[in-house]
């Protein structure tokens, strides 16, 4: 048997001599720092969810009908009449939400440990592009079941482009292919959701990993293992603090995969709607342009950005400032490598100001999520029965918008003018477990 395998291996090697070196360069001879902690599971988990979305998505398209008349019924057909259809659909819908959970944590890791800093700016930029495409992908996927929230969500989000001066209205009609989200919209969103954007996403993921492997992984200490002492058990010329990605991180990520799948299975089998957060109540009613849901809100993973949009008021007779603020919130993240001028990467050795600012960023982001989801609008009257809900919500929401944008302004001033008092960074990585 071993003979058969090695002769197949030789046969391939003769014809594609580049394959084995490529495998070694990215797996067995890619030396990653040995001190990765919990936060380093989320990259591989994002890849896992991407594969899940593609595989379950393929099976969903086998029974989904791309038509405003049939889409809603076909989803219920999948839920009831297709063998295991309910499981495939829940894997896809839960996967979409968990994709964002994982990606948010992955991005937070990057900010916390300074992984976006030189020389990994390109890795970060590619990651931000992935995030943008992922948001478009998720938005269009959300429209496909053609429930009432699909319809109204699509209407609200597409209308954002209407705030662009001069071309806005024409642009909105061009995107929808109609005067309302309609059959034409559904069909083009299907095309973009199942083929165009996934192709872009896959390409960007390959580039993201390729760019990472060019410069090497960062780590919780923010120490450059490539510039540290050389020589490990496998290679005298490679970083002393590096270990081969395979088998060390492949087995570690397998463990992370098992843990993650257990949690995912719990949601899929016991709480697939997740209390209305992953599948919303209003989306179990077919799209109806005459009945507006009581609260139109996007999926939970868009709510922080949606809250920024809502909290920024109109000036000079146009509402475009909110749209600029919303996209600016993402753009600023992409610009982090140039906003943060600090030399020290990891939060472990950065100044107190950075730690506090990072906390403010996290709190504002989560709080904006609650504002965008309409939770604050419900809690305020409960906690303060005599308060004016709109005033209070706006005050709270705008404070959180300030917190979010304040992070970037503070970070630039803090690092550009030398206010940051950093701790000494160790020569070698440290291990804490």
């Amino acid at each position, binding site marked *: 048997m071993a003979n058969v395998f090695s002769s197949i291996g030789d046969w391939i090697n003769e014809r594609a001599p580049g394959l084995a070196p490529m495998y070694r360069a990215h797996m067995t001879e890619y030396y990653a720092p040995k001190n990765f902690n919990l936060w380093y599971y989320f990259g591989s988990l994002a890849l896992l969810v991407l594969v899940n979305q593609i595989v379950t998505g393929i099976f969903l398209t086998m029974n989904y009908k791309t038509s405003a008349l049939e889409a809603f019924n076909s989803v219920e057909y999948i*839920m009831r009449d297709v063998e295991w259809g309910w499981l495939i659909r829940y894997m896809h819908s839960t996967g979409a939400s968990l994709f964002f959970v994982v990606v948010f944590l992955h991005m937070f890791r990057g900010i916390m440990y300074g992984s976006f800093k030189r020389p990994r700016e390109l890795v970060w930029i590619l990651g931000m592009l992935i995030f943008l495409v992922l948001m478009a992908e998720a938005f269009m996927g959300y429209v496909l079941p053609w429930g009432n929230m699909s319809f109204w969500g699509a209407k609200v989000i597409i209308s954002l482009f209407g705030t662009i001066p001069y071309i806005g209205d024409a642009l909105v009609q061009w995107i929808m292919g109609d005067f309302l989200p309609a059959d034409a919209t559904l069909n083009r969103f299907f095309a973009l959701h199942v083929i165009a954007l996934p192709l872009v996403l896959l390409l960007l993921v390959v580039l993201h990993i390729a760019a990472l492997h060019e410069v090497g992984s960062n780590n919780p200490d923010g120490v450059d293992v490539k510039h540290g002492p050389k020589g490990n058990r496998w290679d005298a010329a490679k970083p002393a603090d590096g270990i081969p990605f395979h088998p060390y991180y492949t087995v570690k990520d397998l463990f992370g995969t098992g*843990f993650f799948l257990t949690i995912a299975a719990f949601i*899929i089998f016991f709480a697939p709607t997740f209390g209305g957060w992953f599948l919303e109540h209003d989306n179990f009613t077919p799209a109806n342009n005459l009945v507006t849901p*009581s609260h139109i809100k996007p999926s939970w993973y868009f709510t922080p950005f949606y809250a920024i949009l809502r909290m920024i008021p109109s000036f000079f007779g146009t509402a475009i400032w909110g749209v600029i603020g919303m996209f600016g919130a993402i753009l600023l993240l992409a610009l982090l490598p140039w906003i943060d001028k600090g030399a020290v990467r990891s939060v472990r050795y950065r100044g107190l100001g950075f730690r506090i600012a990072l906390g403010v960023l996290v709190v504002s982001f989560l709080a904006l999520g609650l504002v965008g989801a309409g939770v604050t609008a419900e809690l305020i009257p409960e906690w303060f029965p005599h308060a004016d809900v709109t005033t209070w919500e706006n005050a709270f929401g705008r404070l959180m918008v300030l917190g979010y944008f304040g992070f970037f302004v503070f970070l630039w001033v803090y690092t550009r003018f030398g206010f940051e008092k950093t701790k000494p960074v160790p020569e070698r990585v440290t291990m804490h477990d």
Partner: protein
Amino acid sequence: MIKRAISSIALALGLAVATIPALANEGGAELAPAGTNVADRASLQRGAKLFFNYCVGCHSLKYVRYSRLASDLGLSEEEVMTNFNFTGAKFGEPVISHMPVDDAKAWFGKDPPDLSLEARAKGVDFIYNYLNSFYLDPSRPVGWNNTVFPNASMPNVLWELQGLQTAVHSEAAPGHDAAVEKLEITTPGRMTPEQFRGATRDLTTFLEYTAEPAALERQSIGVWVILFLAGLTFLLYLLKHEYWKDVHDSH
């Protein structure tokens, strides 16, 4: 560091979970918990009986097939076709009400909605409370009103079971209509209030099932899937631990 990371993730998850009830209670008014259990087959069968006696005259279940009802509720084809099917539909066909759409609009002002997904669209608590909150209101076209869904077009079709409920109004503020303070049963029905709550709970359970027939199997399968994954994760942990021994030792 790992401990800190775990506690911060736990905190974030906790925050997310803490907001679930806030969102679940979207109706605004306080709703009593329906207390349904779709795994209770007897309750499902009683609920189905009520549905086909009192509801199907107006409301369809267009995503539910008679054949599926039979297998999921543990009934024979004959039982379903004689007791539940009044329209001459075939066993494999869905439950479609015979009410003509145009007449329905003339009688009630709107077409009675399909109820297949009602429990997922509105929530079981809404349905349960709605069914218990009808009261006589001569000012409404059909003579009934509802505190959970004010000015509903639907009359209380279960009145002979519940009896007649009347509203006790609080004193009206000037310029406002008097608010309904509570509902009282003024003419008893065939059921005691306790029995009626049980009956409406059964009916709600049945609608919870029709909204997601997969709910019957997903939990029982889920237990095994999670046990398998937990075992697999434990083995993978041991594997990781074994591989990483030399990394930890060399440190």
